[in-house]
């Protein structure tokens, strides 16, 4: 097992060497800068919009007189419970991501590693995929009725459960793809060495799919964070999440762009922070067990 060392610094350097040819370095760098600019451009524009008065937004003023009024309205305004909304979103997204990662990763590993009959694998994968195709608006009615009957209407648990359900297909398929990248010889070697199946999974396979876990976790978190129709219908004002709060600025006849931009910026901060911390935590936690 000691050959399988996950070296945080050495591997990236060697991997990078496989990708960057010396003579294309400049072109590659230029393309990368272009891509980053294209991604950041509109985002930076949202940032400037959040500091503008409505009339400045309307007339596309540049330069403009900045104001904190939008942020004040979003954070402290009377119709706004934005801090509570962010808290709700954090709790729901974190919980549903944690649950879906555990459940889907275990299931994906099970399907990949243990020889289940084809109909079992096909049924689960196929069913999750088809369910993923169903437009969410048709699911809300029955879920509303069911949760209301169970007394779970307007609870965080209802949101967490539904978010786990809609994120399960993608997480399952993704983790299965990442497990498929692990050479089977490594696991065979572990078992021969005397590891039990659970240990082999935890100590050997799991550390190798850390990038996959990160990617799946980020996606599950984002989809839960940005989920709108279910959150709208299953919660009332106190438990509303960030997308619902932001949608309040899209009114019947016009959109309050300044407040919406401010709310969007505030909303991305905790998500970015959590993700940055989350990445480091997962990597550290898993590599601790791998290196003997």
């Amino acid at each position, binding site marked *: 097992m000691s050959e399988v060392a996950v070296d945080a610094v050495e591997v990236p*350097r060697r*991997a*990078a060497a496989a990708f960057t040819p010396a003579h294309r370095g400049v072109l590659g760098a230029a393309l990368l800068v272009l891509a980053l600019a294209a991604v950041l451009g509109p985002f930076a524009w949202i940032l400037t919009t959040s500091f503008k008065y409505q009339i400045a937004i309307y007339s*596309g003023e540049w330069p403009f007189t900045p104001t904190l009024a939008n942020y004040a309205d979003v954070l402290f305004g009377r119709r706004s419970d934005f801090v509570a909304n962010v808290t709700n979103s954090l709790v729901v997204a974190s919980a549903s991501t944690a649950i879906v990662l555990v459940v889907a990763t275990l299931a994906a590993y099970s399907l990949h590693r243990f020889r289940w009959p084809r109909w079992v694998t096909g049924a689960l994968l196929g069913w999750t995929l*088809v369910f993923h195709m169903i437009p969410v608006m048709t699911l809300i*009615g*029955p879920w509303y009725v069911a949760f209301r009957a169970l007394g779970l209407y307007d609870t965080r648990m209802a949101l967490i459960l539904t978010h786990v359900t809609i994120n399960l297909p993608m997480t399952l398929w993704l983790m299965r793809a990442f497990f498929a*990248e692990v050479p089977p010889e490594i696991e065979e070697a572990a078992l021969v060495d005397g590891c039990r199946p659970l240990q082999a999974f935890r100590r050997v396979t799991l550390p190798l799919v850390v990038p996959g876990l990160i990617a799946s976790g980020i996606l599950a978190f984002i989809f839960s964070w940005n989920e709108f129709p279910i959150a709208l219908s299953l919660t009332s004002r106190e438990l509303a999440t960030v997308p619902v709060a932001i949608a309040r600025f899209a009114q019947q006849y016009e959109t309050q762009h300044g407040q919406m931009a401010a709310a969007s910026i505030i909303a*991305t901060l905790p998500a970015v922070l959590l993700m940055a911390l989350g990445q480091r935590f997962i990597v550290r936690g898993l590599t601790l067990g791998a290196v003997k």
Partner: protein
Amino acid sequence: MELVNRTFRHWSLVPAVLLFAVLTLYPTVNLVRMSVSTIEFTQGGEAWSFTPLRNLALLRADEVVPPAVRNTLLFVVAAVTIEMALGLGLALLVAGVTRGKGLIRTVMILPILVPPVAIGSMWKLLYNYDFGVFNQALVALGLPPANWLGSTSLAMWSVVAVDVWHWVPFVFLILFAAVEALPVDVLEAARVDGATRPQLLRRVILPLLRPAIVVALLFRTILAFKVFDEVYLLTSGGPGTSTELITLHLYKVFFEQNQLGYGALLSLALIAAILAVLLVGGQGVRVARA
């Protein structure tokens, strides 16, 4: 502990199956039931009647469906192709960076962090004819302003551009994770054996990335079929029917017009269409590789 290990095979699978079954059974059965019924609301309750033929007749007679299907296919093919190409390209590009990968990844995923309702509203401002940044830039360069969202020929591409901005990070994230997980020894062995970089790419890297590419393609395609918020906010399906997508029409039928039965049938038709496209695409890839 022994029991845990012996039954690991089972208890690793059961939670997912149980959770999923419990939460999806009722909505799915409900959906199928609705698709063959007409539901009317009277006296404070629902009245269901079994009318499969009537619903099918509604589908056949619906004049908005053919252009909606055409537009949706065009949108999906255009958006997904561009996103996959850009996502893969960027993943390979960033793989060659030695330091700052985490930072780049954080920057690259920013677009998907923004709630879709905000994306639609903000891009609508960017595309604004009189005051939007794009037209201001065009005018500053001496060019005429473009009718981004009001021209039947341009509107669809404006919407595709927003989708690309929004979802390339998704593809990038998955493929980049896959690239990071590539076994370094295999790559180095191939280089030592004398493989050139294009050969390395084609013969070693891409085949190893295949499972991740397939998943990214699969889910990106399904999500593209389901796109709603951005288009609704940007164009509402207009001008004319040039950006009418199936999901928009479904929203109008199911939700605004409250035709639950026909709407459910339309959803099933959408799922059938997605499956058809995936199967055809899958076959096409198989033929191309052979």
